[in-house]
């Protein structure tokens, strides 16, 4: 999930590696270390200034309730079934998780754009690179959870602020 998030944010999944090495496999550890280093070397240094907003949004996303609950329930939902005894295929669970991941990441971006001083939907869209319609749809979502507030009209444009 975190690798998918990094791809979504443009940081690149290649920056995060998972490997299983047993305590007896010293050679394997050395191989894994070499491979990880060369993969990251290919990606080059992480430009923290350019990715400041993306990293901030990633941080908000991995800490958000919805995703934490979803991840925690994976085995239960796909193996034992939901509260009604119906179990869901892994692919279905993954697609729900991915949709939630993308939505939460975009919401975090919008929230940070507002914190940064964005005001109108057009302004947020320019800062985040998200489509206008998508921004206004997610703003309504953020309003419901009391993360964003409508602050009236300015030059006939609705203005929002992060709480």
């Amino acid at each position, binding site marked *: 999930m975190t690798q998918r998030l990094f791809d979504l944010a443009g940081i690149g999944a290649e920056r995060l590696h998972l490997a299983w090495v047993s305590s007896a*496999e010293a050679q394997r*550890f050395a191989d894994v270390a070499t491979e990880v280093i060369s993969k990251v*070397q290919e990606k080059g*240094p992480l430009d923290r200034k350019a990715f400041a907003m993306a990293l901030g949004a990633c941080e908000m996303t991995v800490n958000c309730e919805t995703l934490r609950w979803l991840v925690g329930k994976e085995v239960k939902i796909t193996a034992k079934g939901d509260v009604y005894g119906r179990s869901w295929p892994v692919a279905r669970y993954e697609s729900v998780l991915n949709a939630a991941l993308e939505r939460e990441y975009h919401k975090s971006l919008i929230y940070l754009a507002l914190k940064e001083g964005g005001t109108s939907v057009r302004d947020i869209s320019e800062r985040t690179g998200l489509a206008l319609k998508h921004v206004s749809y997610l703003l309504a979502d953020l309003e419901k959870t009391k993360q964003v507030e409508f602050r009236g009209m300015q030059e006939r444009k609705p203005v929002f602020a992060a709480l």
Partner: protein
Amino acid sequence: MADFEPKILAFLCNWCAYAGADLAGVSRLQYPSNLRTVRVMCSGRVDPAFIVSALKEGWDGILVGG
């Protein structure tokens, strides 16, 4: 990018990968020194939030070894 030396943070499980890394050291296997390790009692202990904050703090890549 041949001269770029990435900084990589490795979260290693005490019982598996950390012992593997230790053995690699003891048996004098050569591997690049860009890796810095954090020993955790289980790789399940590693929270995605740790990974994101490591990238924020200046690491270029993360390895989680279990």
